[in-house]
């Protein structure tokens, strides 16, 4: 279990424009976001000695970003093979490295031309090797098609409806309207949601996240070092990474997963809350990994905000709106801000805890939750100001 409560902090965030076509390279996006994060912290880039990223062969190695930033001695440059599951793991990895003495100031970044370049949702090779022998030949190929299967199982078990999921899409869009970074800033209604194009039942277009070009980065260092930097530190109270048995041969694979009505969140909740020393009731704002509307439901249930099966009701009636009991995805999330693979959720949590979130600020937000992942494995952080 996590044993470093409040000993590490996020001291800087940086990002590029989020767009459908960046017109530049992934290396340039990564470097811009990383330099912005260092500048935000007031730390000369020369003092950065670690970089951690995650990717699917759609980004650039940490060593190349270190070189592009002019870092003289990168001591911990690590690339994690992963998807959204890793978006909080990069921060845990940075902390572990600093704790081990391998680095002092570590940048965590995610950079991608996810719309104009390599599209994650765009399908796969026509030759099905390994575990994909048992999925792709049946036309089960894309991530929306993967997650729809999990969602349907929740519907079968608990009677979940698409209208209930619609509340998530509408609420997150309402938040994005107030977010200058967001790619989708036109409000939508439940009727718009119902009228959206069916993609893969039970999902319509508005259940599915954006595809984005862009990068973001956060800078992690020790709490002691954080005190000397520009902003009030955002402390990492707790963190966890993992999932249940049979996490799959790749991120798509869920063939051996026992119960698709629950996901990784149910398996990391105990460690997460125990390590942080707080519980779901203490969270003021949560940025939940929302590759799909339904993903939010499974994580709220798994992390104990409500019981299994209660998530669809939990998100109704304004509870997850900015003035509700548990404001969610105040930036608009992957559904409406941008798909920077979940690291943009950490950037938003830091904005909220610093009181820098402008028109979408949750008053007096002290404790924030971020999560990353939607299927068999994932990560989460509890942060405080």
């Amino acid at each position, binding site marked *: 279990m996590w044993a470093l409560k409040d000993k590490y902090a996020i001291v800087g965030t940086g990002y590029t424009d989020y767009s459908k076509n960046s017109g530049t390279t992934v290396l340039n996006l990564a470097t811009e976001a990383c330099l912005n994060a260092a500048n935000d912290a007031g730390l000369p880039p020369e003092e950065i000695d670690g970089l951690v990223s995650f990717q699917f062969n759609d980004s650039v190695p940490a060593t190349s970003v270190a070189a592009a930033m002019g870092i003289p001695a990168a001591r911990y440059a690590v690339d994690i093979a992963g998807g959204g599951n890793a978006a909080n793991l990069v921060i845990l990895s940075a902390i572990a490295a600093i704790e081990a003495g391998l680095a002092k100031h570590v940048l965590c970044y995610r950079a991608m031309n996810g719309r104009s370049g390599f599209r994650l949702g765009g*399908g796969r090779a026509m030759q099905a090797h390994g575990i994909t022998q048992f999925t792709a030949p049946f036309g089960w190929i894309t991530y929306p098609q993967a997650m729809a299967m999990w969602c349907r199982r929740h519907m079968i078990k608990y009677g979940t409806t698409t209208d209930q999921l619609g509340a998530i899409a509408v609420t997150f869009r309402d938040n994005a309207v107030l977010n200058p970074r967001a790619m989708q800033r036109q409000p939508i209604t439940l009727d718009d949601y119902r009228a959206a194009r069916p993609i893969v039942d039970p999902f319509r277009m508005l259940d599915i996240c954006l595809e984005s070009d862009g990068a973001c980065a956060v800078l992690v260092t020790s709490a002691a070092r954080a005190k000397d930097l520009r902003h009030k530190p955002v402390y990492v109270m707790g963190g966890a990474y993992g999932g249940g048995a049979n996490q799959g041969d790749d991120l798509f694979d869920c*063939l051996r997963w026992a119960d698709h009505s629950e996901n990784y969140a149910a398996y990391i909740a105990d460690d997460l809350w125990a390590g942080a020393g707080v519980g779901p009731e203490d969270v003021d704002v949560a940025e939940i990994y929302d590759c799909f509307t339904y993903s939010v439901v499974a994580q709220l249930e798994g992390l104990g905000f409500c019981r299994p099966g209660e998530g669809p009701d939990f998100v109704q009636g304004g509870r997850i709106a900015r003035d509700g009991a548990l404001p969610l995805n105040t930036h608009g999330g992957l559904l409406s801000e941008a798909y920077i693979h979940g690291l943009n959720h950490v950037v938003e949590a830091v904005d909220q805890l610093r009181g820098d979130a402008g028109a979408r600020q949750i008053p007096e937000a002290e404790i924030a939750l971020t999560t990353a992942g939607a299927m068999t494995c994932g990560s989460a952080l509890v942060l405080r100001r």
Partner: protein
Amino acid sequence: MYNKPLPVPDADTKPFWNGCREGRLLVQCCTACGARRLPPERFCPHCHSADSTWQPVSGRGRIYSWIVVRHPVPDDVYGGDVPYVVALIDLAEGVRIASNLVACDVDAVTADMLVEVVFEAVTETVTLPKFRPV
């Protein structure tokens, strides 16, 4: 010409695909502890034995979950197939398999629907196991 993804059998999966070509649905079975497993893997996840046999199963099962693909990806491959159903099917013998549900209205699928295997030879060398309502 068939232009969809084709399985590339490997050391662990070759018996499964050979069985399909012969019109038999085979499941791997641990020699040491008897546990059945699919998809195939070298070592038994329960007892770690590397010894296994392949046993024919009934080909009957129930729909555990399903999706209806309406937007084809890629369009030039699946454009003519939508809407189509992909289902996770719990076979009577206790293993789960992903496949297509065929000979069934896509809007008529229900949880726990009883289905049975049918074999579809898609190329000269590859036969896929698909399922239809019983």
